[in-house]
């Protein structure tokens, strides 16, 4: 990984300060992973091997419903974490798929190395507390939106906070994430400004 990429990775852990040698060690733990568009990064029924940091591309995490349709639970994109976290930590088979919706470059760290960070560097515990707090708040927020807002409100709220790179993925993924039919999403997209 080049210096610029490493700088981006380090910025994801702003609470962590390294000595030079520690920094080299930390850098050595992350392996670059490249995926083509529509590659399955993690399959349902397999165990997630990595915690990822996204350098490029958009990925969707989804589960198949009884009809075999994809139900999108979330997205990851440049600068965000990615992976099937529950499977990664529990070492149990994943219930969800992680798919590259655009050609993707990720950095991945294994479970042993990930857990080692918390033991070797106390700063990671501060990062972890804040990171999981943010994730929890995000999920709670989304749950409230899904349960209380109309389709139109869900669309507007999402589009206002949605990064641009996410707006160019196939609409059916965004529609599924917002719990609406692709036709509804399409109608809202053409009739509502946000």
């Amino acid at each position, binding site marked *: 990984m080049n210096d610029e990429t490493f700088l981006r990775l380090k910025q994801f852990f702003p609470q962590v300060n390294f000595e030079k040698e520690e920094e080299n060690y930390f850098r050595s733990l992350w392996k670059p992973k490249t995926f*083509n*568009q*529509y590659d*399955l990064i993690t*399959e*349902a*029924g*397999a165990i997630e091997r990595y915690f990822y940091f996204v350098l490029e591309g958009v990925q969707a995490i989804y589960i*198949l419903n009884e009809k*075999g349709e*994809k139900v999108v639970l979330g997205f990851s994109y440049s600068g965000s974490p990615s992976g099937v976290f529950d499977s990664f930590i529990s070492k149990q*088979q994943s219930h969800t*798929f992680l798919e590259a919706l655009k050609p993707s470059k990720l950095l991945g760290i294994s479970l042993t190395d990930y857990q080692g960070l918390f033991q070797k560097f106390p700063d990671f515990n501060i990062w972890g507390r804040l990171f999981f707090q943010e994730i929890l708040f995000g999920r709670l927020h989304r749950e409230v939106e899904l349960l209380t807002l109309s389709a139109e409100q869900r669309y507007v709220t999402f589009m206002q906070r949605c990064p641009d790179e996410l707006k160019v993925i*196939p609409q059916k993924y965004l529609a599924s994430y917002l719990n609406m039919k692709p036709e509804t999403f399409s109608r809202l997209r053409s009739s509502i400004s946000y």
Partner: protein
Amino acid sequence: MAALVLTSENQIQRLNHILNTVKKHQTLDVTTLKTPPNPKAWNIVEIIAHLNVAYGKYVEKINDTLAKSADIDKEPDGFKARRWQKFVIEGQQPKNGVRKMKMKTLKRFEPLLDKNELTGEKIDEVFDAFFELHNHLKQSILKSRNKDVSKIKVTSAIGPVVKFYLPEAFEFLLCHLERHMVQIDEILA
């Protein structure tokens, strides 16, 4: 009649489930693995060996079809199974953990194992072959996601009376696997 829409993600998920289940079966003791439920029936190792024989007949056909199919640069989509193929597929598929109709295995699909010579080593060979073959199936399903699967047909191992497009062939093979997973569950019950 409801359409049968096949997706590679659904097939991968089910295949992973089967692979995980067979991995667990491999850890059963040798006596359990080689004891049939009745003298005329297959034991678990014979069932696995039968699945190897059955899939073995598709390896080259699938390789050829994938090699001949054009690459496509679009999102993998559902594939609607055709009426006759759907009927054949559903004939294999167990419903609610029950095998629908009993079938007599054609001679060419019978496992060629000597029941009296099933050592731990021999059993491991059968299981190892299963994983090798069915990882090929998985890789083939994954490869097919970037291929135009709607042009070239595979003649099934049953004969030219059934021809499949690749997603139909994968589905048939998966339903066949699921059918025999139920048979193993019945032995272990």
